[in-house]
């Protein structure tokens, strides 16, 4: 078979573009940007995570900076959430984590609020200040109970 430089070039370009497509799918779409080398892993323990699921976004001031890696039960039967956060992000040690809901019935996400300390959280460290998910059912339950009590009081 005759070597043909043009054909070899086209084949090379094809392979490169295929690999580029794979890389785009893995890194950008597949979210390897947060878990790859240089990403930070932080932990936070919550009393109640509600509907939080792995891969839920982590946001600071509404800007996405990472995603939830895993949610496990720790020895004290509380939810220990592993957070994969962007590389190069420097969070003060008194940063707090809250579980919020986007919109009234939207998906839940972790909101980080940076503190004011001069020291920064290292990779693998624990976020101490956490606030659990607000459960809508709990709120409705309280509201209904209170309304019932008020009605009784009026009678």
């Amino acid at each position, binding site marked *: *078979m005759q*070597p043909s430089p043009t*054909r*070899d070039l*086209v*084949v090379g370009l*094809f*392979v490169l*573009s*295929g*690999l580029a*497509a*794979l890389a*785009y*799918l*893995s890194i*950008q*779409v*597949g*979210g*390897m940007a947060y*878990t790859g080398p240089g990403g930070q892993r932080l932990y936070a323990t919550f009393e109640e995570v509600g509907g939080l699921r792995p*891969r839920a*976004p982590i946001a600071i001031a509404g800007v*996405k900076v990472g*995603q939830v890696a895993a949610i496990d039960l720790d020895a004290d039967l509380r939810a220990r959430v592993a957070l994969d956060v962007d590389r190069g992000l420097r969070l003060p040690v008194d940063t707090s984590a809250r579980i919020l809901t986007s919109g009234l019935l939207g998906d839940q996400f972790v909101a980080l609020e940076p503190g004011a300390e001069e020291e920064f959280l290292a990779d693998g460290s624990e976020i101490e200040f956490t606030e659990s998910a607000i459960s809508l059912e709990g709120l409705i339950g309280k509201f209904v109970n209170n309304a019932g009590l008020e009605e009784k009081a009026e009678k």
Partner: protein
Amino acid sequence: MSSIQTLGFRTLLLVVHLGRLGVFVGRLARASLAPPSRIRRFVAEVFDVGVLSLPIVCLSGATVGAVLGFQSYVALARFGAEGSVGAVVGLALIREFGPVLTALLVTGRAGSAVAAEIASMVQTGQIDGLRMMSIDPMHFVVMPKAWAMLFTLPLLSALFIVFAIAGGYGVVVHLLGLDPGTYLTSLEDSVDFHDDVMQSLTKALVFGTLMASISTYRGYTSEPTSAGVSAATTGTVVTASVAVLLFDYALTTLWGV
């Protein structure tokens, strides 16, 4: 023959073919280890299978993405959830449509061509000619074709998905007026590397193996007649398509929900 005899005969024939296919793949694997590497023949086959399949794969990808975007937008807008169009499009494409449709397209376009080429080499005595020159036809003809198909399918599938995401973007953002950020963010948030991208890649590799072994086997074992060539081509498309769909279900259940 009675119908029961026919049924038994067909079942046994299927098992016989599976056994022969296994032996064929084993011989192919052994031939692949033997020098020389036939790298020039491999590059030529990557050109035939991969580069020449690009137009149909990219065009189909963009169309499938556009249709998927349109349909899921219409369905989700009823619940006011058009923000999740990106998630639906991305997950459906990466997990299923990308590898499966690419495999079906490449089977039709390149698998049939590979089977027909090898079958006509059998028919015209070229395979025997190679053997007379003590060149192993398994090594010279079959091996580069099989590896080229296995190698190109994951690349073509990834390109299909990227073009489909772009096609969906075009329809959903430019035609239906969804916010571009909403589409892409929901797509990127819902797709996971281990669950979805690895599943896609594994499927593409498995489908590539199926296509490569079935099309070369059908061509290589065809009857040395004109009817044999056409039977090999048809048989390749039918068998490989069914095998792809069956294995797709099996692989999907492996990953669970």
